[in-house]
């Protein structure tokens, strides 16, 4: 049965009918706990979902006060009104009038109180399910920034943001998506920095989702990033609350999904991938140096193997004699063509990486050793792969780690560039480069170009792109992404 169908079914007033209906809908699910008791001589039922709430909390905050209620003229209506208006059993106290709301609240960890003869059920927010503690993010490590990251529980993530942004203009709106999963999602933005039209457009895109379940941010992303043909993501992702807050201040919109420790950020710019929290804690000159190092690493990771192949196969005149001799000497004994050799090495690396990622950590480490040291060393010693090629491939792969958010695009583009460089030399690399550049420049949703502020060029914002200005200069900037809107 779809939750939307349950929406039209109002709560049955007769308690036994009501409980029968609830059990029917739940299909005899074992985690539905129903406790029928009498309060002031009135039959009530306290229901909860096992494992979703804290037993001590429900005993202390709900059961004890309930058993101590004394009414002069007890009636079911008077009992619920008394509990609702005169007792503060929890701070979050919604009321369910239909079975859709009832099950959503019940399965979210609320304690539900139904009384005989009443067509409403009181809910008490006493959630107390097991959750992972707030820990350092695994993918966005830093040295000098904060060390807490988002977790799987959306409310904890909302509180992590709120703790950093106490301003009332920070809006965090919860809503539910997914017919079956009934997943809580939250849209966050600074109301004084984001035009309401942008929030409306994003919400319109989300409402187009007709998924049965929303289990991670990846389910949502295609709906808020409508252009399918693009190589690069125009929606950002972070698991750090401090990063998210900095983006919110820049006038961006974030989306949190319950059950996933990542937040989506809209819009995303290409330059975002090169900025880290540490940049703003280091001295500006060092942060600028690191930033240019990252730009260089990005180019090396994509282009170095293809340039090696193109130069070795078609343009040896571009090398000086020493380099050319080293290259010729090492490649003359290799049994495969340079293009096959390069693609092979990189594919081998991808296989080892995947194996290392999916296996348990202890085994994963062993795979890396076997892959990296044994296979790599053996391949060179046996003459299957030349040493310069392995050096180039390793340098390219390591450079790719510098900008992990672009790793998907880098991995695929690197191989296509190698093929183009191997077939048509630098001409091929340039042609494919032009196609990638056009694709990149066409990327951008909701009117925010992905390549901004480089193109279209905005001089004002280059202070955090070409260099990293000091906070004294940045404090007067008041930059919002709206300035980049086209």
């Amino acid at each position, binding site marked *: 049965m779809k939750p939307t169908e349950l929406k039209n079914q109002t709560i049955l007033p007769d308690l036994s009918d009501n409980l029968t209906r609830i059990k029917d809908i739940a299909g005899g699910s074992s985690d539905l706990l129903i406790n029928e008791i009498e309060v002031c001589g009135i039959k009530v039922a306290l229901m909860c979902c096992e494992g979703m709430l804290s037993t001590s909390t429900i005993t202390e905050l709900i059961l004890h006060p309930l058993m101590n209620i004394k009414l002069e003229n007890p009636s079911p209506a008077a009992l619920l009104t008394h509990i609702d208006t005169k007792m503060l059993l929890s701070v979050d106290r919604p009321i369910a009038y239909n079975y859709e709301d009832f099950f959503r609240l019940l399965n979210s960890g609320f304690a539900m109180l139904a009384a005989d003869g009443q067509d409403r059920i009181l809910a008490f927010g006493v959630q107390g399910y097991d959750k992972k503690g707030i820990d350092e993010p695994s993918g966005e490590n830093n040295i000098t920034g904060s060390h807490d990251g988002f977790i799987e529980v959306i409310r904890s993530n909302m509180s992590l943001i709120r703790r950093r942004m106490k301003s009332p203009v920070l809006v965090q709106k919860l809503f539910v998506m997914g017919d079956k999963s009934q997943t809580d999602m939250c849209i966050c933005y600074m109301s004084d920095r984001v035009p309401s039209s942008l929030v409306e457009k994003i919400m319109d895109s989300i409402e187009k989702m007709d998924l049965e379940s929303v289990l991670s941010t990846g389910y949502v992303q295609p709906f808020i990033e409508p252009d399918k043909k693009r190589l690069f993501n125009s929606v950002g992702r972070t698991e750090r609350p401090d990063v998210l807050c900095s983006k919110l201040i820049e006038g961006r919109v974030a989306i949190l999904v319950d059950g996933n420790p990542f937040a989506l950020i809209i819009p995303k710019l290409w330059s975002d991938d090169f900025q880290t929290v540490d940049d703003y804690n280091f001295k500006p000159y060092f942060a600028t140096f690191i930033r240019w190092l990252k730009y260089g690493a990005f180019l090396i990771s994509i282009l170095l193997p293809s340039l090696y192949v193109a130069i070795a*196969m078609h*343009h040896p*005149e571009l090398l*000086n004699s020493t380099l050319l001799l080293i290259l010729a000497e090492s490649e003359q004994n290799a049994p495969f063509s340079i293009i096959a050799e390069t693609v092979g090495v990189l594919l081998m690396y991808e296989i080892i990486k995947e194996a290392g990622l999916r296996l348990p950590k202890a085994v994963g480490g062993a795979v890396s050793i076997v892959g990296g040291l044994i296979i790599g060393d053996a391949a060179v010693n046996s003459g299957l792969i030349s040493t310069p090629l392995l050096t180039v491939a390793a340098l390219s792969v390591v450079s790719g780690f510098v900008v992990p958010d672009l790793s998907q695009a880098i991995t695929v583009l690197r191989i296509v560039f190698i093929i183009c460089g191997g077939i048509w030399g630098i001409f*091929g690399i340039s*042609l494919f480069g032009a196609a990638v550049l*056009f694709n990149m*420049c066409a990327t951008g949703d909701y009117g925010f*170009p992905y390549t901004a502020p480089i193109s279209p060029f905005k001089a004002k914002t280059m202070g955090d792109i070409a260099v990293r200005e000091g906070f004294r200069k940045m404090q007067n900037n008041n930059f919002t992404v709206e300035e980049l809107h086209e």
Partner: protein
Amino acid sequence: MNKISNLQLFSVLFSVKAFSLICSGVTPDASQMAGAAISVIAQYLLAVPMIMLYKHDGFSLKKEMLFGKFGKLLYALFFIICGAVSFNRLWGVSKSVYFPVDSSLACSVILAAVCLYCASMKFSALSRSSLIISGIFIFTAAILILGAYSKADLANYIPATDFGSVIHSAVRNFCSSGELVMLFILLEFSSADRHKGVTAFFTGSLILTELIYIIEITVLGKIINLTDFPFFTAGAFSQPFSIQRADSLYMIAFTLLCVLTVTLQLVLTSVLVKEIIPDLKYNTLLSVILMLGLSALLNSTGADLSPVMGVLIIMLSVVIPVIMLIRRIYNEKKTGADGSNASAMRVQSQN
């Protein structure tokens, strides 16, 4: 098509100009330099009526094109010829400079496929890419200057004395510059203060032309007469680093500029073709096939389209805009006079 900023207008046209300069087979000398300067200044003056035309409230080239669909057809034809000439330039360069592609035709077909893909993106992708590509070209030019600094010999520059050859060079330069026609169309999509983008383009164009000519003259000296493409030869002669050649950089810049130029011509042609025949499908593919076909024809027959291009440039960038401007001013005056007569009559009737 989306609106483009003045900076994007500048970068699009600047890239097209850079491409034509890189592929130019003209042997530069002092007369060419003076002629090119006169040509650029003349083009700038001829752009004034275009800017004036666009300053009129509510002017839209799409709606008010002279001769309607026939006018649009002329522009589309011009851009097809420009595209064919661009492919021809690629053929020429690929014969002289080493391209690891089996034949020049294959080279053009691969480029056409990439341009077709690029043209399938929004026009904004083209305008944004142009800024990055012009940046890469400026970086390349800087490397060229760095390398040329030690190799250049100012004694190779002999000042022009023949006024006739200067004028001849100016006319020749003007008749091979399609940028003025592109400017007329692109102004339709550019934002306010169009004169800023136009002034920036012609200033940049003048500086770039003179800079490349002077580098070619001073670096190559007498060898210049023996080379088909002086830019590439000058690049090969002026290596900035002793241990590493920079030729690949010129090839990268050349290819990127070539893709941008052909894509622009393709986009403009397909937009015009779509307006002439709205129901036509695959108009971009059709346009690129026409360009490639014409290019192959030119290559096989060795025909020189410069006179045709010259006539078309004068007609499309001088005659048509001026007539449209006069028509617009006349219509506005007429409307103004009619309006004042009508109001005078209303006043009389009220009295």
